[in-house]
């Protein structure tokens, strides 16, 4: 079974709208990371949120973390067409910073003009 899972599977919004991707995970973590992967590119880290943090922002991005429910969310405000990508959450399943990230299946986000 997946140790990290994003939902929904896919999202479609129009430019300017806000969108939220959710992530649930099954292990204790020291940090959770959100990545974005555009077509033809490698994943790019967006936000790293540590277990002692509840919220972290990066421009139009906002990540939350709830360790009690083992869930996280990534919100994007004022979406742009260039936000079209697959969004992954990733955890270190051992919680020991071993360097082994476990990715979910990803959420496909399409932003229409």
């Amino acid at each position, binding site marked *: 079974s997946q140790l990290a899972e994003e939902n929904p599977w896919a999202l479609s919004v129009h430019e300017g709208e806000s969108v939220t991707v959710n992530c649930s995970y099954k292990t204790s973590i020291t940090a959770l990371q959100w990545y974005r992967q555009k077509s033809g590119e*490698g*994943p790019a*880290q967006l936000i*790293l949120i540590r277990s002692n943090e509840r919220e972290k922002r990066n421009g139009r991005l906002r990540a939350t973390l709830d360790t009690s429910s083992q869930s996280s969310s990534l919100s994007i405000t004022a979406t742009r067409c260039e936000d079209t990508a697959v969004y992954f959450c990733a955890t270190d399943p051992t919680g020991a910073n071993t*360097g082994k990230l476990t*990715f979910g299946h990803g959420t496909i986000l399409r932003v229409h003009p």
Partner: protein
Amino acid sequence: DSGVVQSPRHIIKEKGGRSVLTCIPISGHSNVVWYQQTLGKELKFLIQHYEKVERDKGFLPSRFSVQQFDDYHSEMNMSALELEDSAMYFCASSLQGASSDYTFGSGTRLLVI
């Protein structure tokens, strides 16, 4: 900043053949990991090297071997290729052995025919 450089960008091999994928990490980064991505979605952890020592192994087939050299670049040697090996192969690097700040390369697309 040249980022993580992977070569070749695309490669086609016949079933049963061999291939070598190369990853040049960001200068000074001694932690290198490899991931396989099929169907454009799930990223599977293959292997991690830190300071030229294998630190963790995941889904790496026994037909594949990975080595990290003195300058920290990494090579994946793939033999007895199977059709199921067709995928994108990404490497990522970070400064330390922890997974906190991975930078991914653009990947190598391998097609086995």
